[in-house]
């Protein structure tokens, strides 16, 4: 005999009056018309922002940083087609970007052919080569997701990175392959001599690639990628081979990774082994996870945040990778949804109209925490300087303050700031937690 089930709190008896009044086609229509504006708005805004950014940040180094961001965005979105959408963890995805990039460099060096194509379409070739390689590797690696897939991706990554010193004709050995983008056929008179022209080429490709990848996630095979990620066995019993679904995702991801490699080739006019080694593969995993794998726009945020860390932070400290590592660790441990997840957590709060109630508790906790962390960073920097600074050079500058790292006073000050900052944050944290649970619950004061 069956047992009463405590998990069910609502009786599930048929409630015919509600069923009859609900027209099955109506919710769909309502959703469709309402969401059109909502779906288009972010794309229009992003395109406008990309178009006017160079007018705000005019110098060349800013353009370089923004181009780097764009390339990373395309790569991270491609990577998330595997990780977030398809549930495949790859440790060697840089090879598809790298091979695409190398192919583009070789096309640049085929002067007869290169002079007949506009530079704008060069990333397509990168994409095709990335896709070709993904088809070969995917043919055997997508049989399983999980550990087997991860191990194969790592192995193939290592293998191709090792090839870069063996197959010198293609990978150019240790010097890599360099070329000149300006030999391409001028595109409406533009020869891409200036950084700003390259910026708009890259930005255009970001919008097109991101839009295509977004649309992909809305196609039957893109939807089934989610289904296979969640439950491969169930997908099989719906008529889909989970292996083929994974294969198509993998190939599409290889294409866009190749596009990002092509954009890299155009920007830097040189590709080396570094573009496809395991370290680069690791970084794109880090970027994607930092941004958040659960949302389409997560990798975009991750790419922007990481590139800023990499470029801006590395100007002020040699230890930037150390801080990036800590950030990644704390993301994995405390915010597995990444930055996008952190942002989207606040959507219900705004919907309930309680966002203002969070401002004060946030300031009370996050401000002291930030000051405490700055103190901690100062301690790290001082230790580094004390151990590795040149002999006799005891002066150092941290947070706009110059002092002698070999005296006791700065250590005491930094230590005190750390303790007080983090101490206050610890005291105020329960109040923030309470304010949060209040702000995420419907009803109550407001």
């Amino acid at each position, binding site marked *: 005999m069956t047992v009463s089930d405590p998990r069910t709190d609502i009786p599930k*008896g048929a409630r015919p009056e509600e069923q009859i009044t*609900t027209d099955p086609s109506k919710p769909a229509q309502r959703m469709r018309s309402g969401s059109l504006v909502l779906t288009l708005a972010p794309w229009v805004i992003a395109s406008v922002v990309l178009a006017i950014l160079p007018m705000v940040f005019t110098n060349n180094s800013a353009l370089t940083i923004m181009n780097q961001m764009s390339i990373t965005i395309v790569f991270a979105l491609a990577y998330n087609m595997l990780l977030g959408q398809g549930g495949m963890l790859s440790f060697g995805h840089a090879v598809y970007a790298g091979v695409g990039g190398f192919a583009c460099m070789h096309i640049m060096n085929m002067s007869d052919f290169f002079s007949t194509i506009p530079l704008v379409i060069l990333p397509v070739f990168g994409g095709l080569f990335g896709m070709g390689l993904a088809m070969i590797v995917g043919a055997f690696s997508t049989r399983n997701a999980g550990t087997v897939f991860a191990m194969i991706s790592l192995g193939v990554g290592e293998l191709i990175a090792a090839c870069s010193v063996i197959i010198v004709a293609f990978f150019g050995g240790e010097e890599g392959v360099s070329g000149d983008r300006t030999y391409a056929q001028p595109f409406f008179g533009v020869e891409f001599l200036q950084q700003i022209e390259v910026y708009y080429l890259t930005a255009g490709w970001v919008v097109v690639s991101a839009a295509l990848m977004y649309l992909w996630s809305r196609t039957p095979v893109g939807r089934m990628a989610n289904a296979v990620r969640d439950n491969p066995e169930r997908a099989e019993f719906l008529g889909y*081979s*989970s292996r083929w679904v994974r294969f198509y995702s993998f190939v599409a991801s290889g294409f866009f990774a190749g596009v990002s490699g092509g954009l890299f080739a155009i920007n830097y006019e040189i590709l080396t082994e570094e573009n496809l080694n395991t370290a680069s593969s690791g970084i794109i995993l880090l970027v994607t996870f930092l941004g958040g794998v659960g949302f389409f726009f997560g990798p975009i945020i991750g790419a922007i945040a990481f590139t800023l860390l990499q470029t801006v932070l590395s100007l002020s400290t040699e230890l930037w990778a150390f801080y990036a590592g800590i950030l990644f660790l704390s993301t994995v441990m405390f915010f597995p949804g990444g930055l996008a997840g952190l942002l989207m957590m606040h959507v219900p709060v705004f919907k309930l109209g309680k966002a203002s109630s969070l401002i004060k508790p946030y300031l009370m906790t996050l401000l002291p925490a930030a000051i405490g962390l700055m103190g901690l960073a100062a301690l790290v920097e001082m230790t580094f300087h004390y151990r590795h600074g040149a002999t006799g050079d005891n002066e150092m500058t941290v947070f706009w303050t110059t002092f002698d790292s070999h005296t006791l006073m700065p250590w005491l000050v930094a230590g005190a700031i750390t303790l007080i900052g983090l101490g206050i944050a610890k005291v105020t944290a329960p109040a923030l937690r309470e304010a949060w649970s209040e702000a995420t619950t419907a009803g109550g004061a407001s």
Partner: protein
Amino acid sequence: MSTPALELTGLKKSFGKAEIIRGIDLSIGKAERHAVIGPNGAGKSTLFNLITARFAPSAGTVKLHGEDLAGLEPFQINRKGLSRSFQITNIFPAMTVFENVRCALLWSQGYKYSFWNLVNRSRELTEGADRILDQINLLERRNLPAGTLSYAEQRALEIGITIAGGADVIMLDEPTAGMSNTETDYITDLILKVTAGKTLIMVEHDMSVVFGLADRISVLVYGEIIATGKPADVRADARVQEAYLGAALEAEH
């Protein structure tokens, strides 16, 4: 006589030395509602897994509409019109209820692995999925993640996913397991409604469900079918009473 919807001949399965299914011959006609009952460990779920190619049989054949299924993958068998549910709820928990059903419709509506169609644009998909949701009374839960539904609702959703693709042979593995009486009645009505005109094969422990739904019953004990027939005949069979029904009926009272 027309070809049976499903025909098993000499089906056997062993895991190592343990023989779980020891030679099963069974023929299930078109539009028949057939229940497989038996004590725990009799091999009912294994039998289901053999038919749907989740496991490969050690010997014997499975024929769907007269066609041998040997060597086919689960997804190929599904495309031939056989669909199943699972004993442990097997849905896509992170996707919305609507998405769950829509995914189940994709193949049967001919979308295959296409990446040139947008699923939101297809009226047939949206309306088809909503029609199924209406049938299983989950229209109100349409946009919730499937994992947040109550247990009975998830079971109903699983039945919805199973029938959505329009398969004509439906296999349900313990659809009412772990449910209260009201929920069991609800699911039983639901099964009757959505499998009308189709061949239904189900494993079930709840005797009231079995005798209420099934046209014929097979009793599986230690990997062998000891009786097959109309509910009344099976109930009267002495071997069945000894092996299984007696104990089950006792437990019921």
